[in-house]
């Protein structure tokens, strides 16, 4: 049994604090130097319905959730019924035997530790409020795996601080009660354990996030527990965002919440609008006026934003839009995950024009690529769409503190207010000057004598309406020409390749790139985990993660496919939408397609099994 690896799950009714427990569990592990990846499943209801937190813990970086559960914390009976099949060998179930009847006969297996924790009773005897049941269960979980209680206590303190001392106290008591109970009664029975890691430089890593004096002591060795949305929001702040306008929509809403929470601190404006149409048009207005702006929504909201996407394009106003996908069509499955809006993102809005479409695969990519998104949007004066999905947007990951030292803010070609340039000193200013690059120097209203005139219809270099056929054609060409530079700016990042030419002693395949997985967005994580599983079996896979879907690096994709014996496309949708793009651009087919569209993210195990199957078939043939 792998030490310092654990798959922990807590389930219960909506409203009992599953999301809070998820965060506390994750931070507690992370502050001990372990890595986590956690995900919460919940229905589109506020209360009632089944919520589940699932946290993977590992001493190494962990990239996704997994199918198997080592500790199942069941705050209701449903949790057991729904997740029994997922229990690993020698797993444990933590439950309150006073509420839930459970026996080995029910389970039809003997390897599981039935860890009966009298949660209700512990609450009663300690005179605690009912609401801390989740914290008792957290304590019990850590007692069972013999973790350091003080780290949990530190996290609870930080988490409930703003709710007042009595809330902190009852949570601390609850945690201890649970911890002591399992430590005393079950720690011998259950053999899995996790423990804080000592950092190479000595000292326990980040045990509570505060140093002895109580001051925040943030070093880059410490790790954050954040979601993809958190990373995007942080990046936006770091990139100099000044205006965020949005209408709430799962799974983009937490960007709105994150940014709203810090608006005064960092001096930007967050506006919840009357609808998504207002959101995008406000962001365009703000950008026209000279600040970095962003909007965020899900596919339904983006449908409404479609029209203004074209407005940004024809007025060459920089715009960053975050698009958190969820299963469609229409309202679909509002709180679940899917990757089925790619084609729509690539072609939303009438007319022929380009937009940058990028899909980060994990929280770090969310951060660094969002910074880049702002730079690209301003340099090329184009809309940039950042595509995520519920899985990436809302799952928590432990990540190193971001390295912000090398971040550059590139606003592109803006005429400085002090510029002596004749052009901009005259009220007739060529905002849309025809240049070789297609990029015209920008100015902002009020910054110069030159007037900034923009027009949603076709226009001349000054921004005034034209129907002239040659000008029209020149302007279309200009707007396309701008994109020529983007791919070369991106270089090797447009399509990221992982695992290429990896050496491994047990490697079976001569050709290291024999098996190539192709994917985009959040599937990066499950594929990485699947790759670990495959590597254990001596199968090395190369993984092409298409980070930028538009502009598309056709040459690179061609060479990837041509250099592979077997290509496997993995997408979380029905239509194999990236597959369509690949075929359209390269004319090439992939060999195998692995699709999932039941609203759930791939498990690494599913991918692993599929690849094994394919490898088996390939070997059987040859």
């Amino acid at each position, binding site marked *: 049994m792998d030490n310092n690896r654990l798959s922990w799950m807590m389930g219960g009714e909506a409203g009992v604090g599953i999301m809070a427990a998820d965060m506390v569990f994750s931070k507690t592990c992370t502050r001990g130097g372990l890595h986590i990846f956690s995900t919460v499943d919940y229905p589109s209801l506020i209360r009632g319905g089944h919520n589940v937190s699932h946290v993977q813990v590992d001493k190494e970086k962990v990239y996704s959730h997994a199918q198997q559960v080592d500790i199942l914390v069941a705050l209701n009976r449903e949790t057991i019924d729904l997740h029994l099949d997922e229990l690993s060998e020698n797993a444990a179930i933590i439950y309150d035997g006073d509420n839930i009847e459970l026996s080995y006969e029910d389970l039809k297996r003997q390897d599981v530790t039935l860890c009966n924790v009298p949660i209700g009773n512990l609450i009663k005897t300690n005179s605690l409020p009912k609401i801390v049941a989740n914290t008792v269960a957290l304590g019990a979980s850590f007692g069972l795996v013999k973790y350091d209680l003080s780290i949990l206590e530190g996290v609870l303190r930080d988490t409930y601080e703003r709710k007042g001392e009595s809330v902190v106290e009852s949570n601390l008591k609850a945690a201890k009660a649970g911890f002591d109970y399992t430590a005393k009664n079950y720690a011998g029975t259950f053999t899995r354990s996790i423990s804080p890691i000592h950092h190479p430089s000595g000292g326990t890593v980040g045990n509570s996030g505060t140093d002895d004096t109580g001051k925040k002591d943030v070093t880059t060795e410490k790790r954050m527990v954040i979601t993809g949305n958190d990373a995007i929001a942080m990046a936006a702040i770091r990139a100099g965002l000044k205006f965020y306008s949005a209408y709430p929509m799962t799974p983009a809403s937490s960007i709105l919440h994150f940014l709203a929470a810090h608006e*005064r601190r960092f*001096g930007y404006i967050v506006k919840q*609008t009357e609808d998504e149409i207002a959101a995008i048009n406000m962001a365009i207005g703000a950008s*026209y006026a000279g600040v970095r702006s962003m909007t965020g929504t899900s596919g339904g909201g983006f449908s409404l934003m479609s029209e203004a996407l074209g407005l940004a394009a024809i007025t060459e106003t920089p715009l960053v839009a975050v698009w958190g996908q969820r299963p469609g069509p229409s309202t679909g499955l509002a709180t679940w995950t899917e990757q089925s809006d790619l084609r729509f993102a690539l072609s939303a809005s009438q007319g022929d024009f380009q937009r940058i479409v990028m899909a980060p695969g994990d929280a770090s990519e969310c951060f660094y690529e969002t910074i880049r998104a702002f730079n690209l949007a301003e340099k090329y004066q184009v809309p940039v769409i950042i595509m995520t999905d519920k899985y990436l947007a809302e799952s928590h990951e432990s990540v190193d503190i971001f390295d912000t030292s090398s971040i550059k803010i590139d606003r592109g070609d803006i005429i400085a207010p002090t510029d002596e340039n004749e052009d901009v000193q005259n*009220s007739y200013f060529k905002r849309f000057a025809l240049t070789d690059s297609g990029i015209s120097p920008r100015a902002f209203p009020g910054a110069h004598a030159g007037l900034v005139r923009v027009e949603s219809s076709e226009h001349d270099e000054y921004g005034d309406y034209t129907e002239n056929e040659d000008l029209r054609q020149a302007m279309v060409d200009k707007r396309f020409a701008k994109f020529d530079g983007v791919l070369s700016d991106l270089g090797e990042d447009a399509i990221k390749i992982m695992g290429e030419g990896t050496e491994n002693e047990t490697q079976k395949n001569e050709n290291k790139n024999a098996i190539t997985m192709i994917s985009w967005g959040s599937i990066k994580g499950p594929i990485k985990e699947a790759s670990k599983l495959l590597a254990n079996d001596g199968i090395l896979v190369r993984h092409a993660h298409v980070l930028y879907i538009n502009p598309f690096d056709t040459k690179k994709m061609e060479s990837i496919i041509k250099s592979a014996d077997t290509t496997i496309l993995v997408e979380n949708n029905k239509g194999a939408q990236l597959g369509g793009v690949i075929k359209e651009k390269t004319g090439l087919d992939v060999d195998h397609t692995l699709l999932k569209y039941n609203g759930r993210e791939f498990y690494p195990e599913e991918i692993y099994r599929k690849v094994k199957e394919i490898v088996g078939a390939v070997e059987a043939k040859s």
Partner: protein
Amino acid sequence: MTDVNGTSQHTFDTVAQPTWCPGCGNFGIHTAIKNAFTQLGLVRNEIAVVTGIGCSGNTAQWYNTNVFHSLHGRTLPVATGIKLANHELTVLAEGGDGDGLGIGVGHLVHSIRRNLDITYIIHDNRVYGLTTGQTSPTSVKGFVTKSTPTGVIEIPVNPIALAISSGATYVARGYSGDIEHLTKLIADGIKHNGFALIDATQVCVSFNHANTYSWWAERIYRLEDDETYDSRDKMMAFERSQEWGERIPTGLFYREERATYEDELPQIADRPLVGQSMDVDITELMGEHV
């Protein structure tokens, strides 16, 4: 390096000439707005005019100011973004009755309750001009158009009543045929610290043969001429907003002072967003997520 100060109305003219139909009421509104700019001594590069799509929206092309000719119905969100990014600009939004009271009426209701310091002018010709004559939200019941050949069934939207009931802080009706009056209403609206709505009733010589110059001339009167009228009285304003038929009031219906949206944002108390540093340190923020 030509002059940039708005010392005469003509400073706001462009070299291009408006292409509206001869006799169109848009000329009057356009002139009144430029007059107002001039009277207020505004500087043209400190003005941003946002227009919608319609005959009215085309007005953008003929102001020598910053202009954003936006989408049909979306003037107010664009204007709001501009104002919040740089509240030192004078922001004026303009569009047709279809633009602002049809497709865009949701933004209007919300802009009103937001009370940003934006001046909004509805070119209210009671018809869809640019799309060659369909019914509009302010077309009177029975009005015959290409899309309503047997007459409009709905009663019209009443922009004055709508604005008052939505909490507007400056509500006026002007008439394209009375440029001087309209100029004053617009100038006052620009000076008003808050959202100002001016319903500029307008003749469309090509498609509205019901509400013609003579039709208006017979009916309109100025509220200023009624000594009993108090534009600070909301009930009175609502009552007067219902007057329509033999006599139609123009002038200032209602005005109140209320903090603007910008006023309540400490982040821009010192300087507009556009003037603020983009070099942001997030070290501590990241620390909070450990």
